[in-house]
């Protein structure tokens, strides 16, 4: 091999250090997911096949290899079977999905015009408006939910205002209703809808709007034909960012909802901390994960196929 050829082949092989470094950088997010998502989930998944006992920890091991054991495999489907038998769980799953879905829709309906307005504002006003969207994050989430309790309560600001004006004679029941839950979720999560929508709308090529108008589309037709279809990635991202945390939301229904507003997060909490039935609670959590993850995976696959 001549020196020239050797020099050529050499450049085609990456130095070992580079390769290691690249794998290391790529590895960090995987390591993060492994440590903080997969490992905890594996533990929860494991517990969901155990039986509850009064002990520390409050569940049985899955395997027993001691000599006096009647059988070595203690894992059981009982928790999952129980979930199908007691319709309390199905009611809470269904209610969670319903509340999360409706909240997501409301967020979209309110957030889209807001994101559109921000994206079309002049750069200075745009920054101010974005700041206003993000600003609530600077106060504690819990504090903001408590503030809503103060607003919506029997002697809260809204009720006293309406009574003073004379629109109502007795205070309205607003706190501890589903409406309060919707209000809380929409209020809390709407920035997650606005920001990805803003990102897609802001980078949209405005000459496409001109082109549609030029070809005879009235402003509303331009919106339906061009703006809306091109903002679908933002709509999807925003909806997922609202829907996923909303479905497992615990604090908002616990503080603002009535006793009957059984969302799955609340049921989960009750199983863990009130009933101390960790295995059943783990089963509830596992099913919740499947309900949330599978539609997302299916959706992403269909998106990739479209590409």
């Amino acid at each position, binding site marked *: 091999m001549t020196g020239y050829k050797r020099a050529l082949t050499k450049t085609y092989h990456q130095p070992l250090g580079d390769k290691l470094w690249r794998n290391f950088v790529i590895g960090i997010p995987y390591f993060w997911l492994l440590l903080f998502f997969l490992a905890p989930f594996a533990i929860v998944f494991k517990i969901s096949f155990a039986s509850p006992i009064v002990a520390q920890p409050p569940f049985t091991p899955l395997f027993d290899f001691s000599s006096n054991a009647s059988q070595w495999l203690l894992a059981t489907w009982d928790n999952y079977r129980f979930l199908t038998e007691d319709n309390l769980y199905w009611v809470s799953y269904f209610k969670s999905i319903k509340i999360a879905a409706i909240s997501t829709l409301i967020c979209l309906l309110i957030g889209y015009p807001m994101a559109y307005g921000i994206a079309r504002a002049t750069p200075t006003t745009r920054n101010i408006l974005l700041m206003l969207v993000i600003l609530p994050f600077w106060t504690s989430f819990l504090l903001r939910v408590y503030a809503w309790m103060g607003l919506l309560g029997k002697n809260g600001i809204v009720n006293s205002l309406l009574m003073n004006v004379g629109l109502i004679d007795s205070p309205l029941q607003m706190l501890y209703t589903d409406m309060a839950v919707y209000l809380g979720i929409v209020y809390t999560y709407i920035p997650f809808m606005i920001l990805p929508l803003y990102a897609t709308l802001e980078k949209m*090529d405005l*000459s*496409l709007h*001109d*082109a*549609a*108008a*030029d*070809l*005879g*589309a*009235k402003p509303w*037709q331009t919106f339906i*034909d*061009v703006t809306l*279809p*091109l903002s679908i990635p933002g709509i999807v991202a925003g909806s997922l960012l609202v829907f996923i945390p909303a479905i497992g939301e615990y604090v908002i229904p616990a503080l603002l909802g009535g006793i009957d507003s059984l969302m799955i997060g609340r049921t989960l909490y009750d199983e863990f901390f009130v009933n101390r039935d960790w295995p059943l609670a783990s089963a509830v959590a596992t099913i919740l994960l499947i309900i949330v993850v599978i539609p997302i995976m299916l959706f992403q696959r269909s998106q990739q196929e479209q590409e």
Partner: protein
Amino acid sequence: MNKKHLMEAQRPTKPYVAETPWLDLEAKPFIQIKGLSKKFDTFLAVDNVDLDIYKGELFTILGGSGCGKSTLLRMLAGFETPSAGQIIIDGVDMASIPAYDRPINMMFQSYAVFPHMTVEQNVGYGLKKDKLAKAEIATRVKDMLELVQLSELAKRKPHHLSGGQRQRVALARALIKKPKVLLLDEPLAALDKKLREQTQFELMNLQYELGITFVVVTHDQEEAMTLSTRVAVMDAGKFIQIGTPTQVYESPHNRFVADFFGTINFFNATVLSTDPEAQTLTAQLEKTGTQLEAKTEGSFSASDEVTIAVRPEKISVSQERPEGDNLTITKGTVEDLAYYGNRSVYRVRSQSGRIIQVSAQNNQRSEQLVLEWDDAVYLSWNSSCNVVLSE
């Protein structure tokens, strides 16, 4: 084959274009722009502009970036509202007509092809908005795609197309509505050189065959020269000169226009005498004292300072003193030369120290350079090539 057939079917029996409608006093302008201005906050983008464009013209508005040409085009399309003035197209005042109702279509600089629609859907979009029957849309889209040679790509999405193909989608989409006027914003800017030349001719042919009035905006003087029936040179929101490509190239009104089109040599000169009858003047070039004659329609008097402009390709370069009548002759030395194959460009330093650019056809076959660096040469040109500019 199909394309040719289609073109023949659409070819008008009589040519649409009267050769020079702008010289015909009876001709009615198709597009009339009267006192049009556009102000953005404090910035006057278009400044009280008047313009007549005739039916079937391929009219080009030429200018550097920020000269107001795009704003003017956007006002024609209806995307910007004029601050003052009037736009009349085919006798109808456009003031109260929104963009989506104007008989105008536009090909955008970025093409603005809808990325989520197929080629077919893009081209058919305008007809769909006109609520035409599906069958008719389908046939017209098919015909149009054949005309721009995109039939095979009908089902493709734009991101699978090359720049040239996207450009043709944009063109087809704008033409399919048979607009009275087609606006083209930098139609060739995004194409590479070869494709640009080819597309240029395709555009001209299409324009002739369809008889649609084209208004082109460009910063590329070559594009403007080859495409247009007439050119308007624009600077700082105003038209500096409007004329045929040969007019603006050969008889520029001022230094700006002269300089904008290609290269040109400027000489400072002092008027010696004038002959108003024959519309000629004699002048002396500063420093060298070379005397020259020039034709001019402007009124000058003796001892006026003027600029004489001469194009590089009008100048001959030779080692012997040329003989002949009506020649302007000056001397210099070759300072730089560039050999382009078909022609050579010489930078000659005249006796006054000024660099004069000369472009000469290499019309003899020779493997050796005819002139070398530092050769003493005579520069000569026909006096009719002298252009007198007042500024």
